[in-house]
């Protein structure tokens, strides 16, 4: 009995400052509520987040748009002159739309072309590799958790670290050449060959990101009831047909999510490639984000306006992809409710 009393006494003693604090906070909150009403309180609580969002996301977006309407090399907006849509028209000025090299900003179109092929190949391969990995991890494998972790760990690495690791492996005096040399194969300059470098950026980015997609697909696979497979087994269904008629359709919602997420991520590819190849050799691995960065900040003749215009165009692509993703999410929610 006395223990209980002591405990409750200790509790109320500890809670006393909390109660005091609540009472102090209560005063201004009541005043705000009186002034704004209940619905106003929601806005009041959202305000700090909206402020941060406004300063660090919305404002830069607007400033970026304004930059895309200005010209010159000056960095501060006040020193820049308004040029209207000139930067956009510069991006789209081409001798022939079939030949990117005839465009005034050929580097932009090279970057667009590189990014396009990178996105197509990387996403297709990424889905294939993630799906196969997920299917293997979904089996009764020895040390399954270990393998799952092995495939997921690269996701936790910083992209710069990923780039450095692979540079260390692929450079002329790197691990790969050392390994090949042991088998009597001549070392090769992987990172100076156009095709190999392009392939390396795809391979490295798949390695770095596949863990997340594998995890999403694995979760989808594990959500498919085992009974369905047993029913198919009783019916004598061949494994290939089970995969095509049962696994794939039931995994479709997860696959769609993975495709869209991978697309959004692939369009923005930058860090690991910048560290690994720097966009080279030549412009063979120059992707859109790197083009924007270099045009705006790094090149000798920097042109923030042009970079801003290119980033707005890239942003539009991402908006479309994000809308698709949201659409899928909402469709999934509706299905879930039904």
């Amino acid at each position, binding site marked *: 009995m006395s223990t209980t009393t002591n405990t409750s006494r200790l509790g109320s003693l500890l809670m006393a400052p909390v109660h005091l604090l609540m009472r102090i906070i209560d005063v201004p909150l009541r005043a705000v509520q009186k002034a704004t009403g209940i619905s106003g309180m929601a806005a009041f609580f959202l305000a700090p987040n909206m402020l941060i969002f406004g300063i660090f996301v919305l404002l830069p977006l607007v400033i970026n748009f304004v930059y895309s309407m200005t010209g010159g090399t000056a960095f501060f907006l006040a020193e820049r002159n308004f040029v209207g849509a000139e930067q956009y028209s510069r991006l789209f000025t081409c001798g022939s739309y079939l030949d990117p090299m005839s465009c005034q900003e050929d580097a932009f179109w090279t970057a667009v072309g590189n990014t396009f092929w990178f996105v197509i190949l990387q996403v297709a391969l990424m889905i294939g590799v993630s799906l196969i990995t997920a299917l293997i991890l979904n089996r009764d494998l020895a040390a399954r958790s270990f393998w799952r972790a092995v495939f997921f760990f690269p996701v936790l690495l910083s992209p710069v670290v990923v780039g450095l690791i692979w540079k260390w492996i692929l450079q002329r005096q790197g691990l790969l050449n050392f390994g090949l040399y042991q088998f009597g194969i001549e070392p090769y300059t992987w990172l100076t060959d156009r095709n190999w470098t392009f392939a390396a950026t795809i391979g490295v980015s798949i390695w770095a990101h596949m863990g997340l997609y594998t995890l999403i697909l694995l979760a989808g696979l594990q959500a498919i*009831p085992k*009974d*369905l497979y*047993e*029913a*198919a*087994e*009783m*019916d*004598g*269904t*061949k494994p290939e*047909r089970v995969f095509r*008629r*049962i696994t794939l*359709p*039931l995994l479709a919602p997860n696959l769609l999510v993975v495709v869209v997420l991978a697309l959004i991520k692939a369009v923005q590819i930058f860090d690991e490639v910048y560290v690994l190849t720097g966009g080279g050799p030549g412009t063979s691995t120059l992707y859109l984000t790197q083009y924007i960065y270099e045009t705006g900040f790094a090149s000798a003749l920097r042109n923030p306006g042009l970079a801003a215009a290119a980033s707005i165009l890239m942003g539009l692509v991402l908006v479309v992809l994000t809308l698709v993703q949201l659409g899928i999410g909402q469709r999934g929610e509706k299905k879930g409710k*039904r």
Partner: protein
Amino acid sequence: MGEIKLTDVNKSFGSVHVLKDIDLHIKDGEFVVFVGPSGCGKSTLLRTIAGLEKVTGGEIQIDGKRVNEVTAADRGLAMVFQSYALYPHMSVRQNLAFGLENSNMPKAEVAERIGEAARMLEIEPYLERRPGQLSGGQRQRVAIGRAIVRRPTAFLLDEPLSNLDAELRVSTRAELAALHARIGSTMIYVTHDQVEAMTLAHRIVVMRAGKIEQIGTPLELYNTPANRFVAGFIGAPHMNFLSGEVVEKEVGNATLLIGGSHRLLVPMSDRKLSVGDKLTIGIRPQHITLANDPGSLRVKVRLVEALGSETVIHADLNGEKLLAVVPGQRQISPGDDAHFSVAGAPLHLFDGNGSRVKG
């Protein structure tokens, strides 16, 4: 044909021995129900017959052929799963056709079989719907339909009614019995519900801890349970068990002392028993009557459940629980003293190991 024979079947998952020396002969066309508490191995037994689990010992024969090494698909059996296992992304028609398409059956025959099963199960209006758009009962029919279209040697049903509500369960149970009468195939049915077992089965297999406790017709199990476990499992409410002692023994008869003071003369031909032996006496609640006779069992009433057509009385006999189900409505309240008579009631005697003692 659909004769299934299990000889000395054993199954272990690692070090866990889940099926122990199962011997069972199911005749063609028979409706056999495996019943037992959760974890007794009844579902595992069904799955080993289906071929979804491999036996670790013994032999399974279907129509005289050893099938231990035969895949689930080639055993010619069809299974209805507890969850129904319908493919959610396919229409009912596609669900029914899926298994048939595996064997490259001509389309016309697939359509004919689906039509026939749909008519039989009255699911024709739903053929183009998906399982998600059907009620539990309709899904259940589709699951059975998927088994029927395959025209299997035997049907294996794993707790097929457990996901239905009580009312639907009763009507579906009757439909299942009618369906069996109509198609006449062997059916093996797993349930933990002894009422389902009693109403559906030709023969019931009672299982406990991986072993078969008794095989028999529903009434055989009810009237002459082989041991205390079967006696307690079959029949609702459960049988009463009272401890007793042999106090006198003559040829063909014995006098037992129950409830501390009550003497009961019972016929007993078992010669192994002698005076002083402890016994368990089983009495079904329906066989107890209320009496005014001071010579009957004097009990304290603990709880009364008036069900209208009958009254369930929970009572206490010198610390032992005793349940009586008496017809009609009775003026009796908790706390009352009452007299229970077991005169003329079929008594079941079990020895210290729980085995039945010959009466």
